[in-house]
């Protein structure tokens, strides 16, 4: 008699597991595809155009040139085995209120294709101007590279460099400029292109 509640519960656990598993099996390929699309949509904003490989599939990590941050994640782009450039995901710890993750797209010549903020915790209304939906500031990196501006110019105008700051969010802007510069320097040093 006292077995019945236990058996009922077990039966429902079994039904529930089966149902969830069936739905999981059916949706799994679609979810994997949607996840891939989400990654690709982000990478496409910064990668050089015309690649024919699978950058997430060819991605690898290497140590970051920035202090205390997590390793770089590099997504290389190729066309017909020819190296086009890469998207580098970098984390900087110099943000105002937490780490900032950026995606820096660089072409084979070492010039910035585009920079995008992936995640950050900067003050709403100030530091979030690094998001494309909140400001144009981050577009200022497109086409820049090592030597353009020269070494000493890779700073905010407030610090004697060539990059405008963000009003009220000097720390955020400084962190982003530094991170992009360091990634470019690191990219120049590691011009190995794994197949």
């Amino acid at each position, binding site marked *: 008699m006292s077995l019945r509640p236990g058996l009922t519960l077990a039966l429902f656990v079994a039904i529930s597991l089966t149902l969830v598993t069936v739905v999981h099996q059916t949706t799994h390929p679609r*979810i994997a595809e949607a996840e891939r699309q*989400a990654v690709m949509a982000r990478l496409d904003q910064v990668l050089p155009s015309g690649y024919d490989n699978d950058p997430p599939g060819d991605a690898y990590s290497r140590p970051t040139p920035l202090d205390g941050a997590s390793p770089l994640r590099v997504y290389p782009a190729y066309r017909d085995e020819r190296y086009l450039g890469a998207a580098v995901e970098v984390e900087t710890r110099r943000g105002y209120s937490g780490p900032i993750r950026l995606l820096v797209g660089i072409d084979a010549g070492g010039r910035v294709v585009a920079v995008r903020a992936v995640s950050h915790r900067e003050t709403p209304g100030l530091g979030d101007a690094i998001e494309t939906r909140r400001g144009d500031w981050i577009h200022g990196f497109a086409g820049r590279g090592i030597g353009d501006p020269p070494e000493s110019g890779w700073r905010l105008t407030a610090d004697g460099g060539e990059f405008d700051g963000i009003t009220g969010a000097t720390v955020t802007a400084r962190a982003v400029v530094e991170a992009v510069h360091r990634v470019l320097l690191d990219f120049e040093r590691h011009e190995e292109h794994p197949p």
Partner: protein
Amino acid sequence: MKSILRNGLWTNNAALVQLLGLCPLLAVTTTAVAGLGLGLATLLVITASSTAVSLIRHRVPRDVRLPVFILVIATFVTVTELLVAAWLHEIYLTLGLFLPLIVTNCAILARAETFASRQPVGPAALDGFATGAGFALVLAVLGAGRELVGRGTLLDGAEMLFGPAAAGWTVTLVDGDVFLLAVLPPGAFIGLALLLAAKNRLDSRD
């Protein structure tokens, strides 16, 4: 039947009167679309679980009633989560944690326990639907209000929920932020307080 609908949507609204399910209500309502997205997901779960609970109401012994109900709800939540992840991936990313947390929306368990476990399938399903719709309505209204006051836009990101054709639905009333506080956490509490007060005011007029 009318009374069930009226009860769920207004008189006994889960969010505004019983103050159930406040966590998602306050957390995701930074835009109308996010609020509506979670509202619809909750509506789906609550209708399905009320129906299921009503169907099994004679077969479950008293002692394990609650665990079984929670399990039923958790199952529907997981199924919904998987479906949203597959077909509305961007909404899935926006809602994040609060999609699985539908499980702990007290409104769902409360309906299962107090209504669905005592009523036949028809009324139970309708009651679940009405409660869910009432909840979704409040989510959408609060989301729209906060988005409008905070950012000066409406239906931003509609394409996440309604497909690419909806990309043009966004209404920008003011360029740039208006009163940013509304989309920050304090704005959630204050916004809901204003909604509650407005409802109290309306009710006291009748």
